[in-house]
Every structure is written in structure tokens, then in C-alpha cells.
């Protein structure tokens, strides 16, 4: 009976055997969600790594052919994990497509990513899709999530929220 739809849970689907798609609704208008997805000073605040990792590098050159680069660093020993890619299509505020390659490949080859935003007025539906080089690669990504420690990251967030 609320005016706004509830903050929805993530819906994960496999549109084809190479792809993975997940979506989530946000309580913000499309322009604001687009900004939060594409401005480096905002992206580094939510594109979290595992617990104990910070994100010292977050560079985004948002234009077709422009590059982006993200680096996460484990504060304890300085170990880094980096990834980056090139933007292909940039069409604010509805979609962005990009390539994604990790420095130390934990999956084979590169992937093609897509942010698609659906304007719902006060809310915005975000659909993220990744297309991998093979089904094996995609299933590996699903299995590992990111790397070990993701659950810790989740717990840390819950700790922040409950403070």
C-alpha cells in the first residue's frame, strides 16, 4: 500500500548461455542514478571490494572510446586488484556499454558490459548485463562473485547500517 515500490531485491537472470543479467530498482530519478553510476567520485563510494580493501583508483572518461580504470587495494599489505576497459556507447541517461578486463584475469578474456536504465519517474530500474566469452567463464563469475571475502563486505555494510 505504499506510494513507492519497495526497494527491490536483485533479480538475476541468464538471458543466453554467455550472459548474465541482474536488475534492481532504486528510489531516485533516472538522471541521478546515471550520475551515481558514471561519476568517479560517486562510483568509488559504492563499487566496493572485499572487506579491508579500499578503492584508491577510480578514473572514468565517459565518452565513446574513453577509458575507465578501477583499482582496489588491500590495506593490510598493499596488494592490488585492477580492472578497466573502454566505453563503447554512452547515451545518458539510458545506457552505457563498455568492455571489462581484469589485470590479473580471474576469468578468461574480456567481457562486454551494459548499464541500462529505465525511467519510472520517482524510481529507476537498473539492468546490468555482462556478456562473457563462454558459458564456462560466466558460470565461474557467478560462482566466485568477485573473490573470497565478499560475504565479509556484506557484513561490514550491515554493520555500518546498524550503527
Amino acid at each position, binding site marked *: 500500500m505504499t506510494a513507492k515500490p519497495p*526497494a527491490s*531485491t*536483485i533479480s*538475476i*537472470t*541468464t*538471458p*543466453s*548461455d554467455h550472459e*548474465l543479467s*541482474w536488475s*534492481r530498482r*532504486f*528510489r*531516485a530519478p533516472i538522471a*541521478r*542514478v546515471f*550520475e*551515481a553510476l558514471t*561519476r*568517479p*567520485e*560517486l562510483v568509488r*563510494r*559504492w*563499487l*566496493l571490494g572485499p572487506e579491508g580493501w579500499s578503492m584508491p583508483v577510480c578514473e572514468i572518461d565517459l565518452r565513446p572510446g574513453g577509458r575507465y580504470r578501477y583499482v582496489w587495494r588491500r590495506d593490510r599489505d598493499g596488494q592490488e586488484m585492477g580492472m578497466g576497459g573502454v566505453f563503447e556507447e554512452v547515451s545518458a541517461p539510458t545506457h552505457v556499454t563498455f568492455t571489462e578486463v581484469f589485470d590479473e584475469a580471474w576469468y578468461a578474456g574480456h567481457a562486454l558490459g551494459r548499464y541500462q536504465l529505465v525511467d519510472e519517474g520517482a524510481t529507476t530500474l537498473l539492468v546490468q548485463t555482462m556478456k562473457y566469452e563462454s*558459458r564456462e567463464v560466466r*558460470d565461474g*563469475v*557467478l*560462482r*566466485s*562473485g*568477485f573473490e573470497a571475502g*565478499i*560475504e565479509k*563486505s*556484506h557484513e561490514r*555494510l550491515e554493520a555500518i*547500517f546498524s550503527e
Partner: protein
Amino acid sequence: MKASPVHSSKPARLDALFGALADPTRRAILARLALGEATVSELAEPHRLTQPTISKHLKVLEAAGLISTARDAQRRPRRLEVSALAAADGWFEPFRKLWEARYGALDRVLEEMADGAPPPAMKKAKARRKP
């Protein structure tokens, strides 16, 4: 506890599972079966597909262990194998948790943006932006 076939992580089994879930008609069939068992003709009806086409989809789902055929020899209703579906969901869990954490943080960023008065760093970045 007895491990389900999916938890044994045989690659062929997983391929069958993900392959089965990759199709929208098959996902719709699973959604229908989540409400209760149904016959082939009952399953075919909302999709305006022929029974042979639906049967083909059902074969894929059955091979993946997602559904089974009940013993009623006449109607042969199909039913959902909930354990297999739960195992598939468990497979997604690390991925889901990562993105739940990230989107939870994104919710906070969006809230702060709504409060107006962007932090100084944001203003500076905006000023630097090319037209």
C-alpha cells in the same frame, strides 16, 4: 545430509541447469509450476505454443533436474523439483551478495545526492567536466 545432484558440481549437470534457466519460456513454465503441478496442455495454454514445443522445453527442464513427471499415468502432470532450483539459487549467492552490498551503498549515495548540497569534491569535479 545427502548432497543433491547439483551440489556435486558435475560440470555437465551445471551446464544443463544453466542452459535450462536461460530460456524465458522455460522460466515461465517453472514459475507456473511453482504454483502447483500442471499437465502439458495446461502448461502450453498461456504460451500459445504447440504441445510438441512445450514438450521439448519440458524435456530440457527434466534433464536439468528442475522438474519431474508425477506418476499419474493418464495426466502425467509435471511438478517443480524445488531442491534443484534452490541449488541453482545457492550458486548465485556469492554474486548476489556482492551486488547487494554494492547496491546498498549505492542507495546511500543516491540519498545523499537527493539531500542537495553536494560535497565540495563533487562540485569541483562538475566544474572540471567538459561540455
